[in-house]
């Protein structure tokens, strides 16, 4: 029977800040945008949570709830470095580690626990190692599937440990509201509630074909997961499926209505997207432009090219054309984004036909892109950029 461990770092970003700066310990700390800027809370320390501050809340609202909170920007370098150290720790316990996000991971401990003398001993050892090496706490859940392990890790926080056997699930999990299940958001909860499914137990005991009829494959899958069936496969990084799209977007600090400013921003975004495509050896055929007006009205426009591209200039030109055709300058935007989908690896057979095409489509990326990539690989991402992208709206 599979045994899956879920590790959730407690108030991760805020804990890192409190760990490195003792002046912040026992104080409400909010990591995210400043309250006088547009943006949201990434993580709040437990002291800040006592004031009702939660992840995803606007920073302005968080500032009103706790005017004395310390607001700190996200330190990406520190987080990335620490997450890498955490992954090394987790891999000591099992080779099958799936990093779900920067602050949580699944570890397949099936067949490993007897080496430690039990699941509680293994989990306790891991928690102590994280504390000793990084001075951080985490909450751990162990269960037969990923969804149950994630639920278990949320039972006792912070610094908790919950172990669920299949026999525990009816008593401990079934009474919980259905929205406690991973993947069940407000819309799905409302749909479930409308047919009398209020708890995980009610979902688990529903006829699977009825769930499929009412909610499609997603409903069927959730029904099975609620019963503890399936959902235990851990995917280490080299077994993860390829990305379906590559995109970047920017929320402006104040709304922008100038076409020049917007095009400069598209130049910047196309550069990020092209760079990421080339780094992962992808090219894509569909380019999508996304823009959001001040009133949150959101539009997407897309076009599909004859051949896949990873060329920054090509992505930029297409995005500009999409913007020019659909957007009337003057009306202010709060967000702009570009994504590229229908991805393939440039070495895949259908792309090899492109070798006979003349002009910019003949190569996956132009000479300038390759030169810029080489410079950035050696000197860093900020070492070179087009002058136009430096004029992007902030």
């Amino acid at each position: 029977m599979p045994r899956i461990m879920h590790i959730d770092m407690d108030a991760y970003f805020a804990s890192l800040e409190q760990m490195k700066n003792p002046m912040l310990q026992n104080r409400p700390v909010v990591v995210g945008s400043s309250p006088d800027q547009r943006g949201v809370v990434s993580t709040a320390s437990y002291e800040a949570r006592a004031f009702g501050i939660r992840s995803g809340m606007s920073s302005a609202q968080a500032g009103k709830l706790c005017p004395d909170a310390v607001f700190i920007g996200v330190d990406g370098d520190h987080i990335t470095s620490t997450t890498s150290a955490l992954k090394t720790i987790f891999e000591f316990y099992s080779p099958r580690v799936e990093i779900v996000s920067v602050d949580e991971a699944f570890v397949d401990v099936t067949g490993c626990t007897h080496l430690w003398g039990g699941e509680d001993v293994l989990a306790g050892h891991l928690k102590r190692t994280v504390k000793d090496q990084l001075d951080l706490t985490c909450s751990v859940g162990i269960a037969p599937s990923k969804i149950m392990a994630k639920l278990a890790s949320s039972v006792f926080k912070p610094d908790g440990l919950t172990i669920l056997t299949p026999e525990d699930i009816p008593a401990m999990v079934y009474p919980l509201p259905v929205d406690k299940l991973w993947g069940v958001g407000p819309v799905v909860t409302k749909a479930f509630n409308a047919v009398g499914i209020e708890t995980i137990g009610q979902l688990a005991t529903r006829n699977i074909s009825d769930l499929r009829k009412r909610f499609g494959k997603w409903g069927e899958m959730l029904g099975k997961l609620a019963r503890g069936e399936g959902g235990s496969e851990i995917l280490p990084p080299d077994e993860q499926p390829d990305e379906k799209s590559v995109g970047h977007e920017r929320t402006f600090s104040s709304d922008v209505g100038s076409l020049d400013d917007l095009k400069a921003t598209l130049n910047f975004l196309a550069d990020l997207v092209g760079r990421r495509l080339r780094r992962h050896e992808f090219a894509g055929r569909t380019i999508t432009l996304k823009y959001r007006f001040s009133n949150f009205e959101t539009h997407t426009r897309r076009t599909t090219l004859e051949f896949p591209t990873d060329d920054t200039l090509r992505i930029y030109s297409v995005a500009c054309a999409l913007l020019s055709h659909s957007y009337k300058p003057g009306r202010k935007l709060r967000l702009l984004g570009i994504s590229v989908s229908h991805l393939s690896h440039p070495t895949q057979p259908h792309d090899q036909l492109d070798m006979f095409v003349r002009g910019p489509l003949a190569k996956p990326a132009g000479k300038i892109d390759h030169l810029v990539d080489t410079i950035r690989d050696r000197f860093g991402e900020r070492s070179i950029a087009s002058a136009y992208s430096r004029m992007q709206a902030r």
Partner: protein
Amino acid sequence: MYQTLDDPVDVIAVFENHSLKPMRFRWRGKVHKVSRVTGSWKSREGTYVIRHYSLLDTDENFFELAYNERLSQWTISKIWQE
């Protein structure tokens, strides 16, 4: 509140347990003795590594120092001011 800086700084550091550890630094004419390194992490600038240190001096002031391996240069990147 943090103040972000990029001030070059003179540092005396030691290699201890296979890692670099700042011991004293001179910033704006004043010598600060490091009482505790509270954190250390790395970032990359292309192929080059930047080593970051959060620390307290003996007066309990908080600093973040960074050592850029490409430039062989120490800087103060952050200070904490109440």
